[in-house]
């Protein structure tokens, strides 16, 4: 299953609902292109909902880092929402869990952008 992405706007925050796999190849490219497109439109508050992401490989982890860096470079903010245990564990062992702002409640995540 490849990566599917849909976006919605809530209080000025773009929520990207992702489902499937973020792996080398199509999955990573979908994420990269979507982030590039959002930044191109001036959407800089981005919340990645990973609740339905079943699998991320090291290339996918690299793509998350790349997205985070790209958004921050444009003066924006990228947060992660609803990590599965697998993704949570991956970010823990790669020491990226403390780099990303990780939320498990959508309303709280959106409120955090206003601060």
């Amino acid at each position, binding site marked *: 299953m490849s990566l599917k992405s849909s976006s919605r706007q809530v209080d000025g925050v773009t929520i990207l609902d992702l489902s499937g796999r973020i792996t080398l190849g199509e999955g990573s490219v979908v994420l990269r292109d979507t982030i590039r497109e959002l930044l191109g439109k001036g959407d800089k508050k981005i919340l990645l909902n990973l609740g339905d992401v079943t699998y991320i490989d090291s290339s996918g982890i690299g793509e998350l880092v790349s997205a985070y860096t790209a958004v921050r470079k444009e003066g924006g903010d990228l947060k992660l929402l609803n990590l599965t245990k697998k993704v949570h564990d*991956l970010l823990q062992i790669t020491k990226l869990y403390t780099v990303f702002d990780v939320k498990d409640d959508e309303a709280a995540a959106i409120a955090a952008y206003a601060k």
Partner: protein
Amino acid sequence: MVTMGNRVAYTLDSTLDSVNKVEQTAEQLAVKVGFPEEDLHKITMSVREAAVNAVLHGNAYDPNKKITVAFETASDSLAITITDQGKGLSEKDVPDPLAEENIMKTSGRGIFLIKAFMDEVNIRDLHPGTEITLVKHKSVPSEDAKES
């Protein structure tokens, strides 16, 4: 495909399709051995990372170069050996992805994750080519777990 007893081996092109095939085969065999769900993820991810290394970093998608993958099953373990025909990999040249200067890098975590997830990892530089062998053992339930 070559089958000998509990060993099956494939020679595959240097493509992402091969990576997916290797990953799927690893999952099927890990299920057959009876690994728990949590280990299935660790095994498939490690095998995928090793296959990506072989296809991408080893053979650089060269259509003239192949990867060979051998799976060996036992009642309590699964061993996977992946060999490429690339320029070779020296383990000491692989940077530590947890070092402060590498944390925000977008690549370089594959070998680290393999080592974190598998019980045994052996990398051999074949001059040229690289061979990586991954082994996962089925954990034996503790006496407490058996009683509960």
